[in-house]
């Protein structure tokens, strides 16, 4: 009889996570079950290998970058709080939240924070700018060996040209946000 999910997660912790991330009680217990089933070492934290054991994630071209997003700067283990904090970016915005004033700190799943998450997938060195190299790296991950360096380079150049407004040949977060929405993007 191993330890059961609900017995290891105390009610106070669930309440704290609820406040911080906005997930409901049952969603949190569900995700805790998921966390423990991924935690093969049973030490309460996940390592990068634990994530890579998920086949669908291992074959995702951006898999490594996404896994990286869960781990804070320079660390190799993520605990449940950190796990939930990152997943909270993807929680859909409920109707009753749309009209709230963001008087307190912005909720983790606001549009800005979602875009920040995506921005950080590009910006590996965390200097708040996406350089041509960083853009090329992500492009290379997504296309594999199927496109030549020159073609990829021209795609990167075109993208930077279109987005860069202050002429520093890299994309800052503000320029990233202003990328025009495509049809089908929901209005926040």
């Amino acid at each position, binding site marked *: *009889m191993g330890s*059961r*999910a*609900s017995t290891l997660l105390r009610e106070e912790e669930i309440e704290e996570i609820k406040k911080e991330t906005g*997930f409901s*009680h*049952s*969603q949190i*217990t*569900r*995700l805790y*079950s*998921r966390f423990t*089933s*991924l935690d093969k070492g049973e030490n309460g934290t996940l390592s990068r290998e634990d*994530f*890579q*054991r*998920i*086949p*669908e*994630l*291992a*074959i*995702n*071209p*951006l*898999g490594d970058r*996404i896994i990286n997003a869960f781990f804070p700067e320079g660390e190799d283990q993520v605990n449940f709080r950190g796990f939930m904090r990152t*997943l909270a*970016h*993807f*929680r*859909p*915005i409920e109707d009753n939240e749309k009209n709230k004033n963001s008087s307190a700190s912005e909720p983790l799943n606001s549009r800005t924070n*979602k*875009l920040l998450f*995506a921005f950080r*997938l*590009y910006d590996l060195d965390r200097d708040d700018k996406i350089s041509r190299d960083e853009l090329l790296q992500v*492009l290379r991950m*997504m*296309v*594999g*060996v*199927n*496109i030549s360096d020159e*073609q990829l380079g021209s*795609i990167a150049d075109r*993208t930077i040209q279109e*987005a860069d407004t202050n002429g520093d040949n890299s*994309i800052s977060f503000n320029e*990233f946000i202003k*990328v025009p*929405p*495509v*049809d*089908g*993007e*929901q209005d926040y």
Partner: protein
Amino acid sequence: MELFFNPFDNLLCILLGISFTVWFTLLLVFIIVPAIFGVSFGIRRLYMKTLLKVFEWATLRIERGAKEKNHHFSCICLFIGSNKDLDSAPEFEMSDIFYFARRGVESIMDDEVTKRFSAEELESWNLLTRSNYNFHYISLRLTVLWGLGLLIRYGFLLPLRVTLAFTGVGLLVFLTSVIGLLPNGRMKNFLSEKVHLMCYRICVRALTAIITYHDSENKPKNGGLCVANHTSPIDVIILASDGCYAMVGQIHGGLMGVIQKSMVKACPHIWFERSEVKDRHLVAKRLSDHVEDKSKLPILIFPEGTCINNTSVMMFKKGSFEIGATVYPVAIKYDPRFGDAFWNSSKFGMVNYLLRMMSSWAIVCSVWYLPPMSREEGEDAVQFANRVKAAIARQGGLVDLLWDGGLKRAKVKDTFKEEQQKLYSKMLVGTQEDRSRS
């Protein structure tokens, strides 16, 4: 002093003697004799119906006690950035990354593969401690019921089942060795069939397995290949108690090895040495030699290669589909309410697993014999394997997955990632060419 103790000793001995005799007579009459003749008193089905009523009552009490219903995972739908599909995008945009990011995070929250390698979670509790995930203390009556169940299962059912198991296996080893001494011929085959069936039926009762066979007219015939989805070693006992098969497998040491060696004396099974298993040509040759001989029994094979938790069917290895025999697919679906039959070999060893099986309520399952299939013109082994797999999944109500069961232990191949990259590149490059042309 001696005079004082003697009567009590005698009385004790007599009582013990009587109870043992009664016990074994009951065992013989109600369990072993029906097993020999293949008939049933219906005791197990009555037991199953009673259990179902108890579970229903328990479920009601749990639902009354639960404060918040557990939502299913589909409620957590992911949303990030634009919802556009990659197909509609004409050229690269920074937001293309959202597509992969969303897929990646969705698979972190829940994926199709890793959950197949651990026991299925039940909707409602079936009064076994081992399947208690989120059910807290609800009421005194429920706890009493659970305690009673514990007593019955470990105090009465487990010893009974263990006795039967030893009887069944012992008889199998002994009788097949005896039959092995006979000269080859119809008499030997006939006796071997009867002995195998009888011993497997005793083993079925040792697990309190309540099996429903459907479509028995499609039962595998000589010279064919019987293919089934794999959940546990018990699958073999379940299928072999209804028909005679030639087994395929690696020779083990210990008790398993003894059983294997004696079985092969009575009728030809296909056992491989550990070194031979790697040689695919040798394996294929032995299998095809066996199916060509029409007097030999149909081969029983589990093409998934590993145990899956009975919610899905994973990739079938193509080896057995290349030899050109008629394939008789069989779908096995266990009812998880009475006991989870899945063998999680990374968590439990064989003995531990069997003890868990014998201390569950019962093993309830349905077996469907599907109509025979053969490889069609222009179909290669992999397509044929997938067609058979789809038929089995459909009949058993299981999810049909393309993923390899070997992912339980091994890493996924890079070729899958390369395929995704190729698809995305095609989309980008295709549009580049259009632009340069215009």
